[in-house]
């Protein structure tokens, strides 16, 4: 290699690395950072984006340069020089990628270890997934909720499982997900770092309601979180039966599949429940509205509204709900 050629190679390499830095610094492709893990993951992501930019530019630039510079001149029917290879060059372009890959793997390992570091006394939240809802149980406080509340700054240990098929518990702003697999309890450590409301989404195909299997995580200040816990612990029977019925509607996951405006539910997998007070009596001959609703909750397979699939609605609600809860819910639905 002569001096001029070396200078060109150095210049091009410097320009590529510069562009890599620029891409890593200036491209904001990730959502808000709402956990300590998100900060670590995003650093790794930016670094990798820089490396990726350099590789991307080498290949695209090489292709463009070849098209412009090495295009056949009109009338030239001759072949190019008979070069079959170059051992030194081939060793270089095997070794350099190998080193880059080793660095990426090492850095990834470091970030993984740091983001899964357990802290003392984490808040334990048991997550159960079912088609197509999430339920959160706080064993220390003894409460169960359809909405996830977390205090900012304290590590959470999610213990995730599923009652039916595989789901995946994903909070994009936390930069992490974990599958909810029936028969297994998967652990996930994460420390929320940002007060706010963030989406929870199911990431693993779980059936026709997969797209709408969403919920929200509310990250509170420690004081707000304590207040929320206290509010949940207080007896739900505040005297308003509609309030109690709406709580059941949430707790037992009805909202995951049914639409009911009064309960702010917009599921699309099961029949719409708006106006069910009127239509319930017309569904099955010989069954009055109240009887029909009770049967639909206790034995969902007995009659399936045409156009909807059998076997999706849980058949064990009779065991899970108290008789009062069922009565209250039926009365509430009749009023809709």
């Amino acid at each position, binding site marked *: 290699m002569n001096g001029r050629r070396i200078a060109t190679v150095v210049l091009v390499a410097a320009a590529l690395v510069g562009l890599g830095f620029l891409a890593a610094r200036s491209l904001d492709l990730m959502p808000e950072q709402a956990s300590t893990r998100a900060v670590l993951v995003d650093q790794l992501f930016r670094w990798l984006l820089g490396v990726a930019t350099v*590789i*991307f530019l080498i290949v695209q630039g090489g292709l463009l340069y070849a098209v412009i510079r090495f*295009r056949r001149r009109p009338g030239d029917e001759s072949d190019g020089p008979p070069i079959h290879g170059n051992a030194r060059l081939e060793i270089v372009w*095997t070794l350099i990628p190998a080193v880059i*890959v080793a660095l990426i793997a090492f850095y990834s390992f470091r970030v993984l270890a740091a983001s899964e570091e357990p802290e003392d006394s984490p808040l334990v939240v048991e997550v159960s997934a079912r088609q197509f809802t999430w339920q959160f149980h706080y064993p220390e406080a003894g409460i169960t909720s359809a909405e996830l509340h977390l205090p900012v700054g304290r590590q959470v240990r999610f213990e995730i499982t599923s009652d039916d098929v595989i789901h995946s518990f994903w909070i*994009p702003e936390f930069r992490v997900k974990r599958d909810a697999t029936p028969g297994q309890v998967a652990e996930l450590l994460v420390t929320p770092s940002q007060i706010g409301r963030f989406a929870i989404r199911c990431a693993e195909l779980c059936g026709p309601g997969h797209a709408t299997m969403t919920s929200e995580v509310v990250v509170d200040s420690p004081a707000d979180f304590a207040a929320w816990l206290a509010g949940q612990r207080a007896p739900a029977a505040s005297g308003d039966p509609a309030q109690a019925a709406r709580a059941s509607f949430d707790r037992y996951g009805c909202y995951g599949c049914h639409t009911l405006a009064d309960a702010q539910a917009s599921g699309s997998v099961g029949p719409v429940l708006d106006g069910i007070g009127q239509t319930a009596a017309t569904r099955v001959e010989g069954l009055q509205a109240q009887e029909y609703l009770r049967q639909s909750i206790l034995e969902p397979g007995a009659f399936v509204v045409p156009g909807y699939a059998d076997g999706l609605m849980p058949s064990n609600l009779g065991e899970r709900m108290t008789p009062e809860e069922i009565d209250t819910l039926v009365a509430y639905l009749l009023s809709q």
Partner: protein
Amino acid sequence: MPKPSLAGRLPSWTRYLWWNTDHKVIGLQYIVTTFIFFLLGGLMAMLIRAELLRPGFDLMNGAEYDRLFTNHGSVMLFLWIIPVLAGFGNYLIPLMIGARDMAFPRLNALSFWLIPPAGLLMLASFFVGGAEAGWTAYVPLSIRGPDGQTLWAISVVILGMSSILGAINFVTTVFTMRAEGMTIWRLPLFVWGILATSLLVLTATPVLAAGLILVAMDRLFGTLFFSVAAGGDPVLWQNIFWFYSHPAVYIMVLPAMGIISEVIPVFARKPLFGYKPIAMSSMAISVLGLTVWAHHMFTSGMDPRLRIPYMISSMVIAVPTGVKFFSWLATMWDGKLRINTPMLFAMGFMSLFVIGGITGIFLASIPIDLHVHDSYFVVAHLHYVLFGGSVSAVYAGLYYWFPKITGRMYDERLGIVHFVLNFLGTSLAYLPQFEAGLLGMPRRVADYADQFTTLNALSSVGAFLLGISTLPFLYNAIVSWATGPKAAANPWRALTLEWTTSSPPPAENFEDIPVVSSGPYDFGQTPAVSPAATPAGGS
């Protein structure tokens, strides 16, 4: 031997509709049949993108959407990319190694004739409830699903059988039927690609078939292989499935890379840079490819310590892949590039596949994967690999061998229009999906949050452009096949053996079996000669 009485009475093209043991007939049967499935799978993609044009359930409900993308994925992988590359293999392998046919011609015909019934079986699943569990068919969802899922499983088992029979035939043919002088180190790189792929098929496909039979038995006979209540393990299926399905990516990519290695030296008019490293990198990818499957399971609660080795093996695949890319670039360096349609698609392959390759490194990095796994980032990645990559290479191959197969030249201007539409459509369809995934959009959803609307609308427009891009190709292929100018034996002045015989080749391929005395890409020697015979003058 065909019965002369029958052959005498029917027009010659009808032999493509019947049982025939000529590898060229079978190769073309494969290519045309699978292209029809490609159009069907593409139509499903158009419906999917129409649904995703705006948020909300606009055209269909969740179950219908699940059926659509399950069949889109299955048709594209099992009835298009894998068999179309086998079709190229069938047509080209005997010609490239100087043989009169494949080693087992009747087995070869059988491998093709398993495909149409299996394809019909898969489509029939729509009429019995449909297959709704995705092409990955994760248990327990796939065990609970409607009857269509059983038909789907049987169809995939049959297609796997076809693939295994084909692989046995390829390996035997390459090892035992080569012409005199066709040493291992003179094999064209497409042959190396098919060889590496066939070894993967023989190792991994039987495992998928076994797994699918277990699922079918759980569904039909009440066995409990995957039942949680009975102590079965749903994650077992993921291990079985990905032990096949990750290598399947290389099954879909290695022959495609082989096509690229054929096209680039011919149109750069230079020897392939680093023949042996490229051949060996195919074998390396094939062996390494068997050790990476659990990178699809980082979120599944597998033993956390096992994640690290899978991350490393997955990333190491980048090294042999890089060897190929740098070698192709070096082949073009100082060459005399003819930028026509096959070369454009080969360069398009490099330009698009590299994006799929780089984003594969992001996915192998466990902390990033725990965020983007099962998101649209993965959808974009896999389409860059399989559409930007494999399908671009298939198009490069279709244009490159069109004169050989049909005996006629295609229209260059229409080819370039096709390339431009295809390249723009691919970029517009898949680039926005990376960002949608990073921002938090899960895959396999018919409805999405409003924040993803713009990205999805762009993606849908790109997909529709891709749909339109097939029209100039179809027009070009059909009209040129019927009325295009006659092609010479060797219009590209290539040096591999398929160009030493007439276009299209006669029955049994060669008048005299060639004797090979030089490599497949020895361009730049003066005077340029083909290894066995003097090439007919090129354009």
